[in-house]
């Protein structure tokens, strides 16, 4: 052996300063990575805010939130009343939830209370594939399959309507509600089920009267998140709902949602600096506020009302 241990230690020590440097630098570099996400949020808020302010310098805020006339493309007498876009969005969301909540919840009950472990292991991933299908594929499906199918039932249904994309968005959201609700129901301890079963309850009574109430906060939070997803969904409505902003409760009519309007403008050539250009930021801001409120609400519900066992 030519080198003594002492030599090796000395050699190592001479590398110390480099080692010391990386030790100090690493956390800083990772902190920078983490800050990117904070800057993303700040970036979203600032860009939306600044362009929205420019928009409100040209269009009165009062008109924006009270008028039901949304005619941005009318030369000369264009009108910006977001209510018709909001109502279109809410109509689509309502249809989606009518589809997604009962089916999603029923799937969750089946998977957590009735299905054997083996069935659950096979079925759950298959249902979750639904959530991974690209939304443009759902849009195509809605336009070329669901709408013609619905036409058999409602003959006067136009090609572009609120019903078909609403149903399809509902289908897209089913796995989200099923999965989150099932998680909530699974975290209800078995001793509660066993107690109820020992008292002579049927499985159904256990599910509806014991597990469901105990898991209610998680279940409601999953509904709220589903609503948020439906509000922000873009491509399905852009393809299949048409582009007719109006205030209506008639599901067979063509409507326009906030997201679909933004897509419509981005496809055309609204010049940079035109009022139409700024209007997509005002609509985007409204959309952002809606979904943020929903997400915060869902977080609040699942934190505030979570029962610990």
């Amino acid at each position, binding site marked *: 052996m030519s080198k003594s241990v002492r030599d090796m230690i000395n050699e190592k020590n001479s590398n110390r300063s480099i080692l010391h440097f990386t030790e100090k630098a*690493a956390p800083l570099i990772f902190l920078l990575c*983490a800050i990117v996400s904070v800057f993303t949020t700040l970036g979203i808020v600032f860009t939306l805010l600044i362009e929205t302010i420019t928009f409100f310098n040209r269009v009165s805020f009062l008109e924006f939130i009270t008028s039901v006339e949304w005619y941005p493309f009318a030369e000369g007498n264009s009108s910006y009343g977001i209510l018709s876009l909001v109502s279109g969005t809410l109509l689509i969301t309502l249809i989606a939830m009518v589809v997604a909540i009962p089916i999603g919840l029923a799937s969750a009950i089946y998977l957590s209370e009735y299905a054997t472990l083996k069935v659950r292991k096979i079925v759950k991933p298959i249902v979750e594939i639904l959530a*991974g299908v*690209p939304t443009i*594929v759902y849009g195509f499906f809605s336009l070329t399959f669901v709408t013609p199918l619905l036409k058999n039932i409602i003959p006067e249904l136009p090609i572009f309507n609120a019903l078909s994309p609403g149903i399809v968005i509902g289908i897209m959201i089913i796995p989200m509600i099923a999965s989150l609700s099932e998680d909530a129901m699974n975290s209800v301890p078995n001793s509660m089920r066993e107690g109820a079963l020992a008292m002579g309850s*049927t499985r159904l*009574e256990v599910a509806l009267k014991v597990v469901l109430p105990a898991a209610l906060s998680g279940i409601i939070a999953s509904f709220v998140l589903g609503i*948020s997803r439906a509000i922000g969904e873009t491509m399905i409505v852009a393809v299949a709902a048409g582009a007719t902003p109006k205030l209506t409760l008639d599901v067979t009519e063509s409507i326009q949602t906030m997201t679909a309007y933004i897509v419509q403008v981005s496809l055309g050539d609204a010049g940079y600096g035109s009022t139409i250009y700024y209007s997509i930021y005002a609509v985007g801001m409204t959309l952002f506020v809606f979904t943020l409120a929903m*997400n915060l609400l869902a977080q609040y519900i699942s934190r505030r009302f979570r029962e610990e066992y």
Partner: protein
Amino acid sequence: MQVIDKDTVKRKTSKRLRKNRLLKWMFFLATLFGIVVLATLLYRIFTQGVGYLDWGFITSFASRFPEEAGIKAAIIGSLWLMAVTAPVSLILGVGTAIYLEEYAKKNKWTRFIQINISNLAGVPSIVFGLLGLTIFVRILEMGRSILAGGLTMSLLILPIIVVAAQEAIRSIPNDQYEASFAMGATKWQTIRRVVLPAAIPGILTGGILALSRAIGETAPLLMIGALTFIAFLPENVWSGFTVMPIQIFNWTSRPQEEFQYAAAAGIIVLLILLILMNSIAVFIRNKFTKRY
């Protein structure tokens, strides 16, 4: 004296049991509904598009004539986009996860970052499109380029990757750290040589799933202004581009019926790519994920 009337009990019990059985079947049918829709969707798109799908479709550019239209530019565009999105989002995402799990103190600032990330996950993708349009395309003057689109996509899928990486890191047991520290390794050495190698399967699984989400995403790129009709291949990250979902969207919204078949064929290509990516993710998870 008979207190319990057995017949009454029997009648009432059998009624409750019948209700139980009936509802069980309804719950089962509801679960089946999703699967049936999925099967219908796949069957419909396959039968519509498979006749249109041939080698010419994959190797041709988009065209005004449906029978000549192909998806070449869109496939290459999607790959270019991934070449930007994958490294950026993985580096940022894993870096954030390491910071949060290994270095951050449990204080308000850390909680703020964490809440911020879960809120970002709930922001509609089209809002990310508005962000990309303003920051990358206009302010940083990247134009309607692959770079602008890729960076926007990276920010969009960042929350998914952060959460997946955090879970992967968290699942490494404490004795691994202790063993490494006991050998005299420093914190960064432990992270680089012990934590990261052990967490890589989990990170890759989450990363691939996030990227497959990005490949199917349309709205943000429409905002960025990815072109819907191009007959050239991108040369570098500053080139204009189109991606598969946008090409499909373009075909979907054309009036001629033949384009619907092109759209269906495009969807088949897209779905095959997604299934491939998901299988790789599942394979990695099954093969390399260790339980301690």
